[in-house]
């Protein structure tokens, strides 16, 4: 069974959803290593033609749909994979695309058309699977995982926080999509403290030089500008350097606030996995019905602190600031837990099992 992976514009998604399973199972794809080259169209075509199954990760344009239809004529099996919803009015952030609401609608139509022609649909969460099952009955949930080989701990010593201050991180989409707002009271209080340093990464410092980006990220950018002298503000980095950068930030506590909307409910626990791998203790968003991305696997909640009532963000963070040994122990145990339960080296068989079901239908 030969499998070929084709991603779209989001490198981080391709890494987690495609590169991790392909490397572990000896498959192929448009990119097979962090720093390696991206295959051009001709090589992608050759790779797809030499394979039995072609996985399209979040195929957002009609050309990919047309390619999949042609590949089906060549008796190839098509897998659609996605890890975010594009459902209209679901809370899909404006930062995910460079355009208008109309564009999200258009992308969603393409994604749905793709799902309908696919032999298998794979996704990250039960909620997203439920959205897709009305369009295709073959839907499988394949969890996001980590590859310990890609984390610097294995070949380099991680950075220790020697600043004398507790470093608190707001990183990635929690910053760029405005989700930090649910914890804004806590953030304001933390900024007043001398024993705390707020570390942010996700919106670039010179973003205002690009009018389009400024328009998209105006709210987040202006928020950071206002508190610029009190925070440690980092520009975004290439995905290939992300893990090392995250470890080097030497953040003690990662906070993961999320607005309660359908978009966020469809998200996976990936940020918890990454923070744990980087040795950070996590305070993450909970929803009152226990269905936030960080609550869906009940066991996960034993390895982080969950905030359901948004007025409690400060108390939960403060608790971890004050209890250093408990914080460090929680981070250590979370890393062990993630390595045991979300390690691609022991979970890669899930992809083999899922794909085998459609591959064996040929015989």
């Amino acid at each position, binding site marked *: 069974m030969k499998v070929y992976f084709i991603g779209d514009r989001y490198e981080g998604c391709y890494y987690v959803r495609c590169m991790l399973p392909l*490397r572990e199972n*000896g498959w192929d794809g448009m990119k097979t290593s962090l*720093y*390696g080259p991206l295959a051009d169209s001709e090589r992608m075509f050759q790779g797809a033609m030499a394979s039995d199954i072609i996985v399209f990760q979040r195929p957002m344009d009609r050309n990919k749909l047309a390619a999949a239809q042609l590949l089906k004529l060549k008796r190839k099996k098509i897998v659609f994979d996605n890890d975010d919803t594009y459902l209209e009015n679901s809370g899909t952030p404006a930062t995910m695309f460079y355009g208008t609401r109309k564009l999200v609608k258009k992308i969603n139509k393409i994604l749905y058309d793709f799902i309908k022609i696919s032999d298998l649909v794979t996704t990250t969460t039960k909620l997203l699977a439920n959205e897709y099952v009305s369009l295709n009955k073959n839907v499988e949930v394949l969890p996001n995982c980590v590859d310990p*080989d890609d984390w610097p701990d294995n070949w380099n010593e991680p950075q220790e926080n020697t600043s004398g201050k507790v470093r608190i991180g707001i990183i990635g989409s929690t910053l760029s999509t405005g989700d930090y707002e649910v914890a804004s009271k806590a953030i304001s209080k933390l900024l007043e403290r001398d024993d705390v340093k707020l570390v942010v990464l996700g919106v670039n410092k010179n973003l205002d030089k690009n009018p389009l980006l400024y328009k998209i990220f105006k709210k987040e950018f202006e928020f950071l500008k206002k508190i610029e002298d009190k925070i440690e503000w980092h520009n975004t980095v290439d995905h290939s350097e992300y893990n090392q950068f995250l470890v080097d930030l030497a953040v003690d506590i990662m906070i993961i606030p999320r607005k309660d909307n359908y978009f966020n409910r469809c998200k996976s626990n990936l940020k918890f996995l990454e923070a744990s791998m980087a040795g950070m203790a996590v305070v993450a968003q909970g929803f009152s019905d226990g269905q936030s991305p960080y609550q869906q696997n009940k066991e996960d909640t034993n390895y982080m602190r969950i905030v359901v009532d948004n007025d409690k963000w400060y108390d939960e963070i403060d608790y971890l600031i004050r209890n250093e040994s408990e914080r460090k122990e929680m981070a250590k145990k979370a890393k062990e837990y993630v390595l045991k339960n979300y390690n691609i080296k022991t979970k890669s068989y899930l992809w083999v099992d899922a794909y085998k079901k459609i591959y064996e239908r040929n015989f």
Partner: protein
Amino acid sequence: MLIKKYMREIFREDKKIKSILLERKELIEKGREITKQIEELETERNKIALKAEKLRDKIVPWANKIRKEECGTYENIEKIEPVYDDPNDYQIKITIFDAVEEYKKALDEKIKQGKW
């Protein structure tokens, strides 16, 4: 199911044809077994290649640092390899190439062949 309804079976005795059929069946099975082994070996080979790529990924940030420190504007790193007689006593050899000189060399060759 529809085809089966109109199918019928007849039987014949012929030792020679039977042995040919059995030999053919055996060869097909052997061929399938070898195909399976080839596929498994191909997957194993891919896994080894992907592991080597992973190791290269770990060297890239270090190599980029060296490039920044040691290479001129038109230079880049060609190869990084350990050089040793004794595995406990080795050095890392970094081969640097000059892209402009390489281009000139290729052009000189074309000139020599009368193609330039």
